[in-house]
């Protein structure tokens, strides 16, 4: 297989996504931080891959998924895979309803000492009795209340990803023939 920047990113996104899906089958690994880590990596590469022309490397930034969700209605293969072939307005409404959760996923990339993320410990500073108290949080032990897996917007995001990766599968199969 001769990879280019687009197919390479999409193939690696697919691998990260498979890990995200697989982790829930193992009770000893059923920790939110593990799954969120793979979800963040999968969505970042998915977005960069689907927005890539294949010729130039993706920008060196973690910020890609939110931008992709905003523009996904223009991506015909993804739109069709999601069942909105001729209903662009309906797809835009759908995409709007997952914007907040897409932003949350994008923000999971490690960025500074005070950002909650599933990869590195972070800190929070609080003013207690006129002195600053530093609390360090560990992703593995953190409860991740921000990621309430039972929310419908998360189900909608997961459906969206399933459809995106179906489109990716088709694209990768076509170029491998």
């Amino acid at each position, binding site marked *: 297989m001769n990879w280019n920047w687009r197919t390479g990113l999409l193939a690696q996104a697919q691998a990260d996504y498979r890990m995200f899906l697989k982790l*829930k089958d193992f*009770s000893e690994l*059923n*920790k*939110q931080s593990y799954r969120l880590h793979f979800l963040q990596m999968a969505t970042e590469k998915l977005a960069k891959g689907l927005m890539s022309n294949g010729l130039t490397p993706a920008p060196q930034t973690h910020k890609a998924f939110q931008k992709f969700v905003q523009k996904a209605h223009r991506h015909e293969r993804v739109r069709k895979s*999601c*069942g*909105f072939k001729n209903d662009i307005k*309906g797809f835009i*409404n*759908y995409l*709007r*309803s997952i914007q907040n959760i897409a932003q949350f996923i994008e923000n999971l990339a490690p960025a500074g000492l005070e950002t909650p993320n599933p990869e590195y410990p972070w800190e929070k500073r609080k003013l207690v009795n006129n002195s600053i108290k530093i609390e360090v949080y560990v992703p593995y032990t953190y*409860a*991740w209340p921000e990621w*309430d*897996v*039972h*929310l*419908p*917007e998360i*189900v*909608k995001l*997961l*459906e*969206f990803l399933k*459809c995106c990766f179906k489109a990716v599968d088709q694209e990768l199969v076509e170029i491998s023939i």
Partner: protein
Amino acid sequence: MTEKFTTIDQVANYLAKNHVENEPGLISEVWLFPDKNKKEVRLIELDRTAMPHDNPIAAFGFPPFSESKIPFHVSLAVIRPEEKDRLDPPVGWGNWNQAKKVWPS
């Protein structure tokens, strides 16, 4: 640690309320389907912005995890209101007549 829920009905009512409050104006109904083993919370929510579905409906399942106050497996599908009359519930969930509307209650 918040106290864990003990029954499926408690969880269904909690999730329905929580979801409607989180997505005001989007979710019009929440239906609970029975699980004779009483191990799974089976919900279908009607949301006008949902993705179109094939028949039968496919739900996303979430196993319980240690940090959660929900000790049950939760399966949730989000469909369009107009699909309720033409789509069957996920395989093994029975039919719409066996479901209980938990929102609006």
